[in-house]
């Protein structure tokens, strides 16, 4: 499957990627596979979160920025201001997963309203019993991706509706921290990208979400069909046009990413796009060259 | 003070004393004592009886084993790793080299004064009460009494009585040495061991300590190591001459210095070696 990018000729150079920690597992897989076909191309991958990634993208420090939300207008404006042209590629679908500890035997599902109520800051100490009667009278420990993350932005928009998140939530750009936190804490409640749940299925319990049509659990099918609403969302990479044009290795890497995106995103636990979406992306890419 | 002595002697007659043939009480009876530092045979077949309430001087050239012997008497020698002994030293009848003899108990009966004054870096008062305190005496009044008595006994009371709470390090070397003697007196030992107690002192301080030793022998048995033959002649009753780890001659001091029976003793005393 790698043949397409190889062309037999060895490329050299440096590609810098930063951005979404949600997308990070895909990019990590892509870069690892890519390294086997083009060992001379030096690719570094950061995971500063979508917002943080865009900051370095704007500063011209990276060639590719991954994102778990579409680019914001103000970010676009800054890029335009600097005269940087860029292109958006869709890479995979994600079901933002709400998780609790394995030992949590009381939560069967949560409604969007319940999520909103419990995650919003209102000056009180949140207990499980505040959500539904009969649940333990224990303080909830919140674990959330950091405010620079696309995941947070998405959650903020859909669930919190731009109101402040509970103050004592543990916020971390590093999803591994969140996984460890929820794994180790019986009264924890957290959310993050589907891949992190998929990778740690045995340790975590995912909470079905009722968005109005009954509780739905995030799975490949429910995410792809958008049945898992409202927490399904697409994942992106953004590429600087000029880099594609001037650096064959950037072009080659993006091509490789799109060609292998379906397989690799499934492998790390996300849901692939439709085949024609990838075809479309590859066409766009050719247009940039 | 002399009254005290005679009283004491009487008291002690009733205790577990052993007498030598001439009827004097023997404090320490050393028999066939051998000592090795690793492979170094430092004491060889030492036989020596130390009489109570006498000053016994030990003389001999450097390295002959004087310090080693005196340190064996209160088992301080055990601090040196790799020391082995054979033979016995009977202190009032019991063999102190026997491991069942607790050193701590032995050392409450046998005080020691060292070559270099080694007061603790504490106040004069605390230096003196250190011994009584570790032995469980807490009563402030008794402690005060002990301090005064010991300092008087060491002939330094008048010099320090007004600065009990000053650090002992502020004193001169000679004063420090007398503080160390007072410290040893404070636990009322029977024997006082002194290893060249004046060699770090100036002549005047030396004289004071020598006078003090004369005074102390009324109450204590004293064993003193010295390099200074004049000193041995001046202050001791008996003198033992050590050479290469052996006792060459042990006799009345007068005899040793006027009419030694061994040629080597004579050579040493007349300064032909050492």
């Amino acid at each position, binding site marked *: 499957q790698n043949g397409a990018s190889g062309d037999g000729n060895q490329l050299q150079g440096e590609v810098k990627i930063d951005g979404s920690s949600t997308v990070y597992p895909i990019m990590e897989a892509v870069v690892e596979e890519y390294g086997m076909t083009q060992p001379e191309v030096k690719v570094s991958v950061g*995971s500063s979160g979508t917002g943080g990634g865009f900051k370095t993208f704007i500063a011209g420090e990276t060639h590719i920025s991954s994102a778990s939300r579409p680019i914001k207008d103000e970010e676009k404006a800054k890029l335009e201001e600097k005269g940087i042209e860029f292109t958006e590629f869709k890479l995979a679908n994600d079901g933002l997963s709400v998780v609790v500890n394995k030992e949590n035997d009381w939560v069967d599902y949560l409604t969007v309203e319940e999520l909103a109520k419990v995650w919003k800051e209102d000056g009180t100490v949140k207990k499980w019993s505040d959500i539904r009667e009969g649940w333990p009278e224990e303080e909830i420990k919140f674990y959330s991706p950091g405010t620079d993350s696309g995941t947070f932005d998405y959650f903020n928009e859909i669930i919190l509706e731009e109101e402040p998140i509970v103050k004592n939530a543990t916020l971390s750009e590093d999803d591994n921290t969140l996984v460890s936190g929820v794994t180790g804490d019986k009264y924890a409640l957290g959310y993050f990208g589907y891949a992190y749940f998929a990778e740690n299925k045995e340790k975590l319990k995912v909470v079905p979400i009722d968005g109005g049509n009954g509780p739905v659990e995030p799975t490949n099918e429910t995410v792809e069909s958008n049945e898992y609403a409202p927490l399904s969302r697409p994942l992106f990479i953004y590429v600087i046009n000029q880099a594609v044009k001037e650096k064959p290795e950037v072009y080659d890497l993006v091509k490789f990413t799109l060609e292998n995106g379906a397989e690799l995103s499934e492998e790390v636990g996300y849901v692939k796009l439709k085949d024609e979406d990838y075809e479309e992306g590859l066409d766009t890419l050719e247009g940039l060259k | 003070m002399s009254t005290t002595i005679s009283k004491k002697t009487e008291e002690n007659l009733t205790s577990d004393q052993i007498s030598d043939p001439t009827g004097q009480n023997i404090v320490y009876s050393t028999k066939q004592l051998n000592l090795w530092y690793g492979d170094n045979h430092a004491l060889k077949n030492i036989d020596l009886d130390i009489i109570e309430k006498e000053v016994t001087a030990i003389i001999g050239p450097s390295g002959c084993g004087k310090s080693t012997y005196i340190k064996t008497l209160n088992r301080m020698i055990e601090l040196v790793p790799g020391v082995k002994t054979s033979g016995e030293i009977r202190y009032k009848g019991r063999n102190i080299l026997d491991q069942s003899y607790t050193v701590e108990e032995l050392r409450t009966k046998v005080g020691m004064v060292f070559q270099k004054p080694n007061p603790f870096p504490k106040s004069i008062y605390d230096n003196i009460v250190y011994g009584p305190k570790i032995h469980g005496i807490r009563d402030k009044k008794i402690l005060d009494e002990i301090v005064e008595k010991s300092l008087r006994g060491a002939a330094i009371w008048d010099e320090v009585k007004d600065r009990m709470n000053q650090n002992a390090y502020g004193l001169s070397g000679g004063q420090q040495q007398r503080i160390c003697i007072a410290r040893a007196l404070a636990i009322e030992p029977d024997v006082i061991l002194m290893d060249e107690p004046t060699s770090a002192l100036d002549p005047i301080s030396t004289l004071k300590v020598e006078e003090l030793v004369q005074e102390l022998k009324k109450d204590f048995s004293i064993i003193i190591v010295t390099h200074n033959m004049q000193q041995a002649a001046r202050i001791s009753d008996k003198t033992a001459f050590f050479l290469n780890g052996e006792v060459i001659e042990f006799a009345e001091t007068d005899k040793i210095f006027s009419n030694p029976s061994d040629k080597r003793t004579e050579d040493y005393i007349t300064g032909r070696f050492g």
Partner: protein
Amino acid sequence: MHLIDKSSVIKKMKPRLLVNTLYKTLFFAATMFGLLVLAVLLYRILSQGAGYLSFDFLQNLPSRRPEQAGVKTALIGTIWLMLVVAPISLLFGVGTAIYLEEYAKKNKFTNFILVNISNLAGVPSIVFGLLGLTVFVRALALGTSVLAAGLTMSLLVLPVIIVASQEAIRTVPKQLREASYAMGATKWQTIVRVVMPAAIPGILTGGILALSRAIGETAPLVVLGLPLFLAFLPRTVFDTFTVLPMQIYNWTSRPQEEFHALAAAGIIVLLVLLIFMNSIAVLIRNKFSKRY
């Protein structure tokens, strides 16, 4: 006349001896506790990591699949870091030590430098990271390069090298210097030909210890922002890179057990490297110790 009741003294002897024995046992146990922890720590790490340890582990690039992951980039990166830190820190460390021991006059300024050095030795390593981030990464625009990290680490270990070198220079006997001066040698000749050769074992020992500190440090590098995933080797000092502790940290922070085992395997590699360096230090110390 007797103020001390001998019989009570004897009576109190037993409990005192008992207390002594008791505490001796306690003190011994405490000492053993440290050793025990060390043993447990090593055993844990060995048993956890041994499974992943193989020749491939040293040769493989990092991977998202634990079975395929290796420490090559990190190991090579660590070596790069040493290659930068060793010359820089030795140059400045030994230079400072020579200045302080041979040239500096006893005045306020010298005293200031001395106090400064001992304070610097106590500054937390993460603060050096902030310094490196501001000065090397940003102001000098070196990025997260080997050079930026190397300079930061050199400053971090500088006090260690200075103090060790001072110690080494100080133990060179005065008589050797006098002998040299008496031959008409100048001060610098004396330093180069007499003092330095005699001090070099001590300096090297200190240098190696400082280097082991440098390759075990994580915090400053985290602050500099070394990348998480790196599948290539640096070619010049201006390339970005990663080091063993960073790789270990990365694996540690992943929730899956497999990565923890990988982290343990990485730790074994790091510890072997450290043990190797320290044995060299010990060898040097033994070979050259106390010749005058």
